[in-house]
């Protein structure tokens, strides 16, 4: 069994989201404790991306509550949530294609003002992603998919987030690059960052995470410790091809 931290960083209660006339999220409850790496897995169209976008403030929920750091996020706009430390690495990476790698990373620090700290963080990012250091002045749009994923992650980290949300970081990447990206995710988690990881690649996500939620057509069908989910028959059958 896993421990429930009494004061979660993020707590979602009975969240319902609809758009385009379809109810994409049909009453979801989840929570993330400080420093926890939580995986949200599920097949295509289960509503995982909608969930993340709603948490980031890009979709408005029809009902339900999102509490972050003890505050209700109901009337908090997307850009304010970013300033509060919620960072989203969007699906498909969303790098600023016609800006250089450095410019991309600097945009990540848009809400921050201390120039010395930003410069120090930039140097730290290039340590974390040496590959990007070699490509500093290159336009982000000309990088490979894996490098773009690194840019998107580094850019999100530049905001000094307290909650990092990753949407399908493995999507469209070569297997070797996927390994690399997940190593980095583990490293970041080991430094105490709270992470919500959305993935179709259930095995990888559950291997990295402490806890997991399984989502199916807009609802959570299973949840528990990551290793228990990995071993459970239902997950094995549905997502791991066992």
């Amino acid at each position, binding site marked *: 069994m896993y421990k429930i931290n009494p004061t979660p960083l993020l707590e979602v209660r009975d969240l319902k989201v609809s758009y385009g006339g379809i109810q994409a999220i049909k009453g979801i409850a989840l929570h993330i404790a400080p420093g926890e790496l939580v995986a949200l897995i599920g097949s295509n169209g289960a509503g995982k991306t909608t969930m993340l*976008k709603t948490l*980031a*403030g*890009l979709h408005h929920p029809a009902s339900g509550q999102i509490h972050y750091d003890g505050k209700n996020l109901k009337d908090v*706009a*997307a*850009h*304010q949530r*970013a*300033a509060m430390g919620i*960072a*989203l690495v*969007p699906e498909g990476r*969303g*790098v*600023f*294609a*016609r*800006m250089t790698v450095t*410019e991309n990373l*600097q*945009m*990540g620090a*848009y*809400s921050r003002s201390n120039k010395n700290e930003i410069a120090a963080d930039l140097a730290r990012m290039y340590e974390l992603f040496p590959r990007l250091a070699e490509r500093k002045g*290159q*336009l982000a*749009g*000309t*990088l*490979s*998919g*894996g490098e773009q994923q690194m840019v*998107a992650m580094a*850019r*999100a980290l530049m*905001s000094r987030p307290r909650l990092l949300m990753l949407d399908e970081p493995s999507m469209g*990447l*070569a297997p*070797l*690059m996927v390994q690399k990206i997940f190593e980095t995710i583990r490293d970041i988690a080991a430094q105490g960052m709270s992470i919500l990881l959305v993935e179709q690649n259930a095995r990888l996500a559950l291997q990295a995470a402490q806890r997991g939620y399984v989502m199916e057509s807009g609802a959570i069908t299973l949840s528990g410790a990551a290793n228990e989910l990995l071993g459970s028959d239902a997950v094995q059958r549905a997502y791991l091809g066992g």
Partner: protein
Amino acid sequence: MKLNSKSKSLLVALAIGLLLIPFVTDTLLGRGWVRIVDFAMLYIMLALGLNIVVGFAGLLDLGYIAFFGVGAYCYALAGSPHLALAFPMIFPNGVHLSFWVILPLAALLAGGFGVLLGAPTLRLRGDYLAIVTLGFGEIIRIFLNNLNAPVNLTNGPQGISRIDPVSLADVRLSVTQEIFGISLPSVHLYFYLFLAFTVLVIFASQRLEKSRIGRAWMAIREDEVAASAMGINTRNLKLLAFAMGAMFGGASGALFAGFQGFVSPESFSLMESIMVLCMVVLGGMGNIAGVILGGVLLAVLPEVLRHSVVPLQQALFGKMIVDPESLRMLLFGGALIVMMLYRPAGLLPSRVRRRELDTDEVVETV
């Protein structure tokens, strides 16, 4: 900014060159051409204003000329006897405000219209945004065309005439002035006024581009979702882009009205919006030098054509076969197609676009 002696002397040479333009043009080509150069300056200002909306923030605006119109009519109403017709009790002589009052007024009014256009289109992008802005431009023009009843505000299709010329500290730009023994005709005076404003607009554009606001606009242009996830208030910044672009448009509209002495709705047709957009695209979207080049080319070339086509055809065939106006559109369309095929990023592509095209061939490695 520190300049070394070489770039300093270049700058001085450039300044002298610019100041000599009206005299050189006058001597070589005649006074009519100085007027054309004056118009080219107005177009450069317009194109730089549109470049903020389209080039920096990536919001395609096909109704930009409406803001030019708003500025021009603002000047026309606040600097002519016209309002005496509509409100003879309040303004028996019309309204004759000072240039320095009207100019910011026109810019602010146009900026307000910019927000008015921006607010309902915040959720739209690309084609949809283009269609709504196109509609907006036409609405403004049709209003100008029809607001002569029930109260005669715009004088309808006849337009407003007898507009006060620009006068700066009692120096009227509409008559020849003697300065240090040099006689400066009206078109020369207006050239210097427009030059000063163009330099101001270029300076403002450059500062904006490098500012925090400019970088946020570029992020919105590249990926709006990611931009708002970075903490950028996309709504306010998009409205700001519309407002800033519109203010530049409105200010140049006011200058236009003062220079021309007459405004009518037909100066603000869809074709004009498209021309200004073409200046931005042809020169190099997002690149200030490119936009200036585009403005000069598209303002001056049609005039060259107008002055050369008729005599050329007369000499060759003894009569006029194609009128310059339709030939202009034909050449213009052809030039655009050639541009899109061979120089898709414009004549002077922006730093970023150039690099992007250069690195196209780089093989992606994972």
